[in-house]
């Protein structure tokens, strides 16, 4: 009986400890959600294909804390993005801003698509006009001769 009680107590303690460890994240779920959402937009420069939300590199942890502190201090998402770009450049943004130096990046694919469509259209138009062309007298005669010649002889 005593042993069972001790076990129960130990179990309760264990749960108690767990609850305590989980506390910081639940402290302010709204803030944490904003931190995660903004962190997912920012590239971790140490491990370049991860966002600072995914990465556990020391710098990513620092930058996440930076995001959390600044949000807590009442700064807006846009202000924090500016803060990061001032220090690390456009490269920290997974979705680069639309400006002169990123024009080719944003418009390049659309330009290529447009050029491709124009070329395709011109090609199809040319083919259609070639198909519609009437045969001349000489061509009719030549076609008849070829067909006739094919019909007269036995295939080898």
């Amino acid at each position, binding site marked *: 009986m005593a042993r069972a009680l001790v076990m129960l107590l130990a179990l309760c303690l264990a749960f108690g400890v767990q609850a305590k460890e989980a506390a910081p994240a639940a402290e302010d779920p709204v803030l944490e959600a904003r931190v995660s959402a903004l962190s997912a937009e920012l590239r971790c*420069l*140490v491990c*370049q294909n991860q966002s600072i939300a995914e990465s556990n590199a*020391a*710098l990513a942890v*620092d930058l996440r804390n930076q995001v959390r502190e600044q949000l807590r201090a009442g700064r807006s998402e846009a202000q924090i993005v500016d803060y990061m*770009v001032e*220090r690390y*450049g456009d*490269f920290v943004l997974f979705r680069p801003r639309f400006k002169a130096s990123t024009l080719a990046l944003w418009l390049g694919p659309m330009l290529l698509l447009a050029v491709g469509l124009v070329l395709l259209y011109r090609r199809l138009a040319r083919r259609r006009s070639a198909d519609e062309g009437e045969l001349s007298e000489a061509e009719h005669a030549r076609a008849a001769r070829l067909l006739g010649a094919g019909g007269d002889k036995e295939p080898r």
Partner: protein
Amino acid sequence: MTSNTLPMPRLLVPLGIFVVLVILLGVGLTLNPREVPSPLIGKRAPAFSLPQLRAPEKSFSPSDMAGKVWVLNVWASWCPPCLEEHPHITALAEKKIAPVVGLNYKDEPQDAVRWLTRHGDPYLLSATDLKGQIGIDYGVYGVPETYVIDQRGIIRYKKIGPVTPDTLQKKILPLIEELRRG
């Protein structure tokens, strides 16, 4: 004979596109994706005031260097590439054309002092950035990093990763000479 009946020019178009693509991709392979252009070039070096590593009661601020061309080198005792560049940073300091200030980044001060004692201390002084907050202001994301700052406190050059004899001879030293001439 029209060009349509000649197969050559039509074949050359895809071939040309292919060659251009290969050249573009080839150049891309030789670039280092870690060397992100810093937005800080041409901007004022962010202000800070940090305790000095060897004299924690004294502080260092970039404004202390006003009127001088100087070098800020971010280093840490836990960073192997810092040791790799250490002889070249020492060579730069020994030229005595520009003081080299260390920014000891997220390091234990005892470890940092021990590292300097063991390998030599080329720095005029090192400032202690325990939490890496100043590192964030300077856009540091890989130690070591090296900044050349002019007389007016403007960052003129940034090297990410270890300084090599090549960058020292071709970039840093000529730039310092040029800035010193005014």
